């Protein structure tokens, strides 16, 4: 089912807004994770981890789910389809990967926030976990940048399924 132009523009606006918002929120999260890992100021460390928890639950998770949902609507509601073009398929897989990884990593984020709220963290406390949050945020940022690049450049290439559909459409037009 193909959406009408006005509805498609609305869906596209929702998708771009949620996807770019997700990217920006992860960039902010990365800055907080670096501050939490490297700052010598106990108040700064505490504030960083508390802010990361809030940002995760009230900005990043909702935006990631919105991006996934609006992306599905956008592809299924246009002639791009979901499985016809490699770039759409690659972007879908990257978005699912990033969303699942995010949902799996909400626990350590909340753990760090709880630890920061209860105690004054020294630079050695929970160091492995704090490094992991920086690495995870950096990896997430990279994945989202790749997804954004795919969406902008739309590298050509049809999947076998897309080629089959294309041939059927061409045959029906003859």
């Amino acid at each position, binding site marked *: 089912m193909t959406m009408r132009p006005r509805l498609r523009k609305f869906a596209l606006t929702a998708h771009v807004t949620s996807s770019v918002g997700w990217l920006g929120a992860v960039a902010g999260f990365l800055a907080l994770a670096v501050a939490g890992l490297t700052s010598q100021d106990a108040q700064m460390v505490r504030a960083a981890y508390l802010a990361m928890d809030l940002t995760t639950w009230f900005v990043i998770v909702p935006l990631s789910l919105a991006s996934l949902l609006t992306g599905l609507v956008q592809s299924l509601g246009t002639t791009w389809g979901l499985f016809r073009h*490699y770039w759409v398929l690659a972007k879908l897989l990257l978005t699912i990967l990033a969303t699942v990884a995010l949902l799996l*990593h909400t626990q350590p984020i909340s753990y760090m926030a*709880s630890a920061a*709220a209860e105690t004054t963290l020294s630079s050695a406390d929970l*160091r492995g*976990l704090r*490094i992991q949050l920086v690495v995870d945020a950096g990896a997430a940022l990279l994945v989202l940048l790749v997804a954004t690049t795919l969406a902008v*450049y739309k590298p*050509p290439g049809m999947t076998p399924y897309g080629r089959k559909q294309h041939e059927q459409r061409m045959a029906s037009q003859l």
Partner: protein
Amino acid sequence: MDDPPPYPGDDTVGGPDGGSTGSTPRWVKMSGIIAIVLVLLFVIVHLTGHGLGGHTPRGHTPSTSVTGHGAQ
């Protein structure tokens, strides 16, 4: 690289107009190889225990959470 041309009368990118219908493009093959290497690295790092210390430390769970979604 040019965008696929939209359908006539359509000023948004609503879909392709055929696009490349040849065999699997090189960028897909290269991306697939990179993805497989990354997945293998990830699995090896986790199996050999050289990760960053796991997710949450065991044996201690903070009792409070800022958002109420704390570690269970």
